[in-house]
């Protein structure tokens, strides 16, 4: 097994060959599935916990506080302690709630996030699913989550939850358009829907640089719409604390609440990862035209690090939004989408098509 931090293709290939030699093809595939599943599960759980911790520390820095300090040095075990607490908490269900849907909802939400994470390329060769309609698949499965939210709000038999779920439904359905259209703009530019090919296309320059104006507009729109799609502030009106107590997950406790909580942060990761992949070059190092020495130094940093640096930067920007802006009202959120983002987006696609046709790009 040849482990190479710059390219995981050989590693995954070796594992596959090794398994195929020792087991029957069916068993080998099953074992591969299990390995991939466990790795993703672990990654999601740990990265989710890290994001919660990061959010608390970043938010504390915004507010001139310290954030968690008690559990472990600088409070790094705080989220793990919280998670253990949530695991041990009693699961409370409202008496008149719909038993089946109430219990189903958190799973739908978290499964949707898992599905979406599968197509993201973390590094060369480090991608569970690499197929030619990657972008299309991602936009499709990422909107499955809203069904879980709607079910959660409806089945808990609580008016606050219901209002929250309805808001969330209207919001996510609308912003799905903007997310798809801004991705579509970049698909027009890249000429492919396959994530690995999109990343490969940015070897010389990231799309946000090479696509200049339309790409930047698309990036900004994607950030706004992505924030809205993850139900984060200033678009957190599905769980608007000051209005609806906790929105659609008011009645959830313990591990089911933890699932919603985790799903929110995984969604945050997915949106940032997509933004990083499509606009900022994914795991591609920063390259500047002909500065060979500079490019060489950049190449020295492993692609995985590049990927996570970009993702964390985008996450930080999204957190910055949340901790600065007041929340929008439900009608304003729809106005923003239908009167501002959508028309701009459509014009932007045209612009991008012109840019591609006239080859007016780097």
């Amino acid at each position, binding site marked *: 097994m040849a482990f190479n931090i710059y390219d995981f293709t050989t590693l995954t290939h070796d594992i596959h060959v090794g398994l195929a030699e020792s087991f029957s093809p069916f068993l080998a595939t099953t074992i591969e599935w299990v390995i991939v599943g466990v790795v993703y599960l672990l990654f999601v759980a740990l990265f989710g916990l890290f994001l919660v911790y990061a959010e608390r520390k*970043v938010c*504390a*820095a*915004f*507010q*001139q*506080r*310290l954030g968690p*300090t008690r559990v472990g040095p600088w409070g790094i075990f705080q989220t793990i302690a919280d998670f253990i607490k949530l695991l041990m908490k009693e699961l409370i269900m409202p008496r008149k709630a719909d038993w089946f849907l109430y219990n189903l909802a958190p799973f739908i939400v978290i499964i949707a996030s898992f599905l979406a994470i599968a197509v993201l390329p973390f590094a060369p060769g480090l991608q569970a699913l690499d197929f030619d309609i990657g972008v299309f698949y991602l936009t499709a499965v990422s909107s499955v989550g809203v069904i879980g939210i709607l079910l959660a709000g409806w089945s808990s038999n609580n008016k606050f939850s219901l209002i929250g779920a309805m808001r969330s439904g209207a919001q996510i359905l609308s912003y799905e358009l903007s997310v798809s259209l801004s991705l579509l703009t970049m698909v027009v530019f890249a000429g492919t829907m396959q994530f690995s090919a999109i990343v490969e296309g940015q070897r010389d320059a990231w799309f946000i640089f090479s696509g200049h104006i339309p790409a930047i507009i698309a990036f900004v729109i994607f950030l706004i719409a992505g924030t809205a799609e993850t139900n984060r502030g200033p678009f957190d009106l599905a769980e608007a604390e000051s209005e609806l107590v906790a929105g659609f997950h008011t009645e959830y406790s313990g591990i089911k609440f933890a699932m919603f909580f985790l799903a929110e942060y995984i969604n945050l990761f997915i949106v940032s990862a997509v933004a990083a992949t499509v606009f900022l070059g994914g795991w591609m190092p920063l390259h500047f035209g002909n500065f060979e020495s500079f490019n060489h130094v950049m190449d020295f940093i492993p692609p995985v690090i590049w990927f996570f640096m970009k993702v964390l930067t985008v996450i930080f920007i999204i957190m*910055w*939004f949340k*901790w*600065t*802006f007041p929340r929008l009202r439900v009608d304003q959120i729809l106005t923003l989408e239908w009167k*501002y983002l959508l028309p*701009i987006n459509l014009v932007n696609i045209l612009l991008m098509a012109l840019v591609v046709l006239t080859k007016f790009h780097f």
Partner: protein
Amino acid sequence: MKSFIEYIVSIFKGVWTLLIGMKVTGKYVFTPWKHVTHQYPENRDTLVMFERFRGEVIMPHDANNEHKCTGCGICELNCPNGSIEIITKSIVTPEGKKKRLIDQHIYHLGMCTLCNLCVKACPTGAIVMGQNFEHAVWDRAKLTKVLNQPGSKISEGVKE
């Protein structure tokens, strides 16, 4: 056309105000060492309360276990909540005079609103406000305190 220009201008103006807001919070996030949090239990050794801070009523005793309380009961009268009870005892002085002295100065911290009226009214300055504010106890009965220490007596020279 005019409304279209207004539409474009409104977008840029709106985004500009948002950026100004982000600049304010951004200034703080990149200077995280300027935090305002006091880490309370950790800074207990260095924590100094203001001298006038009202934490609880205490009766200072000097080195000879003497206090200044005559048991006149003015603090009890001035207390709005009935959190002070004075129990006096009668003794016969060696000269054969009957004299009333403080037996127990009972103070119900649980009922006290720390209004400072008793301290202000005390004619001999026997009670003062203490700076301790960590009053949490497991048993509510512990909030009822006897302020004069056992075996203490009134110091000489306090006029009655």
